[in-house]
Structures are given as C-alpha cells and as structure tokens.
C-alpha cells in the first residue's frame, strides 16, 4: 500500500525509495499517537498521503521530470507490447499530469475506496469528492486523447 502511494507521487526508483523511507519514518513517529479511532488502514493512508503531499524533495524532482512525463504519453507502439498495456501506460502518464491532490483521489479510487472512506482519509467532503472525481475523469480523457 505504501508503495502504491510512492508510485503515485514519485517518478523513479530513487524517488520511490526516498518517499518510502520518509513515510515509514513518519508512521514510526506517529504510531504512539494512533488511538484506534479510525481503522488502521485509514490511519496508514492518512499518514502516507500527508507525507507525500508535503514532501519537497519530490516536488523538486517533479519539475525536472515533467517533460519526460509529457513525452511518455507519446511512446511509440511496439508490436510485442499489447494495445491494452500501451493504453495503461498512457493512462499512468496522464495521471502524472494531475495535481497532487487529484493524484491522491485517483489513488484511493484505484484502491477501490468508497467516497465515505476517501472523506475519512482526506477530509474532503463526499460531495466535493464526487465533483472532483468527475472532473478528474474528464481531464484524463482529454490527456489521453491528445
């Protein structure tokens, strides 16, 4: 689960490892304060997303890699790679173009979390989340059509 958060917010192996480490340490530090009011997985997601969103190292590297992300949408189709796989790659590249908050919503959506669970993790109201999700889907459609 932590790797999924890292994958969403970091672009290469080193960044993933760095972010993974930061999240683990943050979990380690925060665990004594875990009072069991929320589910353990909810608490885990909260800490992981919180750390990923406020992680400045990742931000710096994102600026440097944004051009690569844009180019990755136009990866030429190779015969040995299935069409579906190419579409998945395009979708992943399109997700990288979303802002950090939108990425967290997409990640929780891909994790099959209900809007109530997302609200509990992110603190964004159910109604706002639904509106945001629709906008994100529209955005992704536009990105992948380009």
């Amino acid at each position, binding site marked *: 689960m932590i790797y999924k958060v890292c994958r969403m917010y970091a672009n290469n192996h080193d960044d993933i490892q760095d972010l993974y480490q930061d999240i683990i340490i943050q979990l380690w*530090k925060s665990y004594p304060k875990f009072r069991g009011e929320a589910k353990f997985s909810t608490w885990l997601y*909260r800490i992981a997303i919180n750390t990923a969103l406020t992680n400045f190292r990742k931000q710096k590297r994102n600026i440097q890699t944004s051009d690569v992300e844009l180019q990755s949408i136009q990866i030429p189709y190779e015969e040995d790679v299935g069409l579906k796989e190419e579409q998945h790659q395009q979708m992943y590249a399109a997700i990288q173009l979303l802002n*950090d908050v939108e990425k967290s919503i997409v990640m929780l959506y891909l994790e099959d979390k209900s809007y109530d669970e997302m609200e509990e993790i992110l603190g964004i109201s159910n109604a706002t989340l639904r509106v945001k999700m629709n906008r994100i889907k529209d955005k992704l*459609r536009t990105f992948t059509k380009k």
Partner: protein
Amino acid sequence: MELDHLKNSWNIVSADLTRNEFDIISATKKEMESPLADLKTMSKRQLITLPLLIVFLAVMTATVPDMKNQLLVWMAFIVLPLTTIYYYFNLKLINMLENSEGAVKNDFQRKVKQLISNNNLYLGLTRAAILILVIITELLIQNNNTGLIPGIEIIKSILFPLRLLIYAGTIGVHYVLSRYSFNLYFGRYLKRLKELLADMD
C-alpha cells in the same frame, strides 16, 4: 480508456513493486528529510550557540571593567535570551508540524492555523517588548535617571524628534525583519499547505 479499466493493472503493477528490498532498520536510523529539516537543524544549532554566547558575554562583562558601561552589551543581554526563546519555540513548532494527526485536510488546516497564530503571538510579544523598552528609556531620560542604564546618555544627547524617528525606525526594522524571517523559515511550507488546501476545496 477509462480510469476504471486501470484498477486491475494498478494492483498488478503495485504488487510487482513490492519485490524491491527495503531495509527498515537503516531507514529509521536515518533522519527524515522533512520540508522543515534544514530549519530544525538550524534551530538546534542556535539553541546551543546562543546560550554559549550569553555565558561568554557574562564572563567578559564580569572580567573586563569597561564592558559594563557599554549600551550594546546590555542590549545583547536582552536580545540574546529573547532570540534563544524564539528558537526554542521554533523548534517546538517544527516538532509539532512534523506530526500528522487526523484527516489530511484537517491536519493541513490545523498546521496553517498554528503557524499563523504562533507568528502573531511572537510579533505581538516582541512588539510589546520593544514598546516597553522605548517607554522606559524615554521615562528615564525625561526624569534624568540616566545612571540606571549605562550608555543612555548617548540617547539623551539626541534631539527628541530624532529620537522619535529612531524609535519608529526600530519598530519598522523589527516589522520588516520579522516578516522576512517568517517567510524565510516557514513561508515555503505555509505556501505549500495553502496551495494544497486550495486544491482540496
């Protein structure tokens, strides 16, 4: 291609990633590189250096007779402990900011509120301290009690309108410096939190 179609692929790719090895022991030994890590290091350093400087100054004042008559030395005895307290509270604030509690948005809101209220408290206290210092200085000058604080004679020799200008300048410089230091230390972090909160609304 819709986002819903990605769910299966998402789980497979993520599962692949877990093959990477991660040494939790070495990770926990290493200090987390939080956005405020540099500021934390600096605050810790200042909390060691400033008390040493106060002790050094106290020893010098006790041993060198001329130093007792220097206004700057006495000012340092006021400014240095205040700066030490400032860094101590900064360190406490950073430790608080490094902990996350509750839902992500609520946590960010709490941190923004805490940062702003801490800054306002610091500004209010230091402004009050400067004002008290100005009033005491002026009262001493008006009542000719200049012997109480060494070096106050120099301030007395300055014309009253010019003195007022110096007091106003001190308050102005303090305002500019406070704003600058707040932006320098916490500005980037606060900006990031505000941006995230705006994206969440």
